[in-house]
């Protein structure tokens, strides 16, 4: 069974803008799925559709095997969520805020509520501030209270939209540890971020969004494998090396002052090296380099600031 799946999920805003463009999500049970993409790439709109807050223009989505938004009221109590930042009543304490949300849950047992609230606050380290009014919380505390709200019940799936937004490095580490802990309990975690580095360490799977389209989805190692390796030669005769690359049929050749490189493709590195030596190129150094995950991510999503659409 899959925790989240969608086929052709699409959202076109009233203004005509295509926010989410036929995405086919597949989040396996037990995965920690990093939902990546720059700001404005459609991540939050997708999450809103999954939670039944926004209605898709076309396409289907399922949470834990239940179609949404039609079955949202039947399945959402099994799903914890943090959407677009924390939101609580500023004039209520942290504890009263959680009680308010718990009261809205028709499947929650009111008699176990005090214990469940304490437990959730304890998990995010907010128990000492439970009686404080929300308006006096720091940004990090607000974020943690939102995570506590998603942990009020045992959940099968937790959806966290940018859980580290606005947090300092210390807070970011705490959230990461919490995600690890939640996943260790067997809960599927779907976590969105515009920063690969923030989720890379905890994710088993990633989906990468760009301008409303899902441009990659799969296990994290698979994303690594998509990185095309380049052969890089340190040599005084870069132009000569490029000619050899060309005769070998390598593409995307580049010549620098003391270095030449090309896409390796299906060629054997050993063979390339031998050919270079055979052609009389003075090889000082020879390596095969795979791009970093960050490079791949940037390759998929584009450099920052290029907001398309």
């Amino acid at each position, binding site marked *: 069974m899959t925790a989240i799946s969608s086929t052709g999920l699409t959202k076109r805003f009233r203004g005509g803008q295509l926010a989410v463009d036929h995405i086919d999500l597949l989040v396996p049970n037990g995965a920690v799925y990093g939902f990546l993409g720059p700001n404005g790439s459609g991540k939050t709109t997708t999450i809103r559709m999954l939670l039944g*807050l926004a209605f898709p223009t076309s396409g289907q989505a399922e949470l834990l095997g239940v179609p949404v938004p039609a079955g949202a009221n039947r399945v959402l109590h099994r799903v914890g969520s943090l959407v677009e930042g924390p939101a609580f*009543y500023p004039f209520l304490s942290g504890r009263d805020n959680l009680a308010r949300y718990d009261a809205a849950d028709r499947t929650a047992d009111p008699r176990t509520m005090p214990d469940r609230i304490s437990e959730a606050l304890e998990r995010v380290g907010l128990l000492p501030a439970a009686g404080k009014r929300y308006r006096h919380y720091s940004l990090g505390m607000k974020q943690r209270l939102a995570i506590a709200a998603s942990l009020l019940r045992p959940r099968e799936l937790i959806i966290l939209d940018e859980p580290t937004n606005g947090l300092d490095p210390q807070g970011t580490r705490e959230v990461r540890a919490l995600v690890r802990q939640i996943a260790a309990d067997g809960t599927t975690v779907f976590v969105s971020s515009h920063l690969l580095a923030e989720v890379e360490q905890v994710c088993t799977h990633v989906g990468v969004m760009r301008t409303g389209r899902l441009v990659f989805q799969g296990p994290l190692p698979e994303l690594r494998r998509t990185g095309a390796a380049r052969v890089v030669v340190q040599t005084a005769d870069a132009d000569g090396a490029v000619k050899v690359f060309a005769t070998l049929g390598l593409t995307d050749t580049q010549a620098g002052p003391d270095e030449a490189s090309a896409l390796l493709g299906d060629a054997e590195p050993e063979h390339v090296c031998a050919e270079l030596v055979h052609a009389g190129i003075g090889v000082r150094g020879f390596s095969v380099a795979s791009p970093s995950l960050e490079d791949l991510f940037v390759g998929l999503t584009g450099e920052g600031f290029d907001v398309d659409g």
Partner: protein
Amino acid sequence: MSTAEAPALPAPGPGPAPAAPAARNPARAWLRLFGAELRLVFGRRRNQLLLAVTVVFPVVIGIALRVAAPHPQGGGNGPGAAFFNQLAGNGVFLTFIALSTLLILVLPVVVAVVAGDSVAGEAGYGTLRYLLAVPAGRTRLLAVKFAAIVMFGLAATVIVSAVSLATGAALFPVGPVTLLSGATVPLAEGLLRVLFVTLYVAAAMAALGAIGLAISTLTEHAIGAIAAIAILVVTSEVVDQVPQLAAIGPYLPTHWWLSFDSILRAPVDTSTLLKGLLSFGVYAVLFGSFAWARFTSADVTS
């Protein structure tokens, strides 16, 4: 905490817990959310302040009339003018004076604040998306919101009546009640009529609450919704005063509010009362349906 194998079961509490059905019972779950909504509405300092204002007004009106109006015959033709003539003889009439005075703006604004805030306020805080993700259920949440608005309007009306009765009893003589039609009824029956008048006004406020709820689903700015409701009330009252527009008068939302004086006649003018209640019912159903249609189909973008 671990993932439950059977997700439908609630978290196991301490001790034996055969009580899953208790939490399951939709009526009980509804009442639980309703209770939480009432705590939120009545526990909020701003709303408590509004109720405090409704306490102060009847007292001030009572004192002012006691001090300044020994000759009520010259009382003009403002709302409830007929009541002023009766007050000197019977403190019970302070209730009707206070209700008809506060119905012009104070009570509608009290209801408008809570109704306008109901959905728009949640949207503004962003708590609406979390309530729906709980999931509270859109129809269920809207029903709870409306019920809480009705309760708040009822509370404000009852407070005005109760405080007026107490103030009237303290400042004026109290005894058998002479009705507007001239007949005199025993005090107990007079008090019963006060109760009916209070309920009639509360029904009027419930209808206004439905209008406010509908307006509240259109925006995420509570203050805008509140202002819109208040403007609607004032506009309706002004239009109702224009003789050239008398034809549309009966269809205005505020037209029947002051018709509670029908209860103070013998026999009771039931046809006017029923028209008023019909008007309230139609407005409640119309705007309640609009609120529902809008709230269950709109994307929550806040």
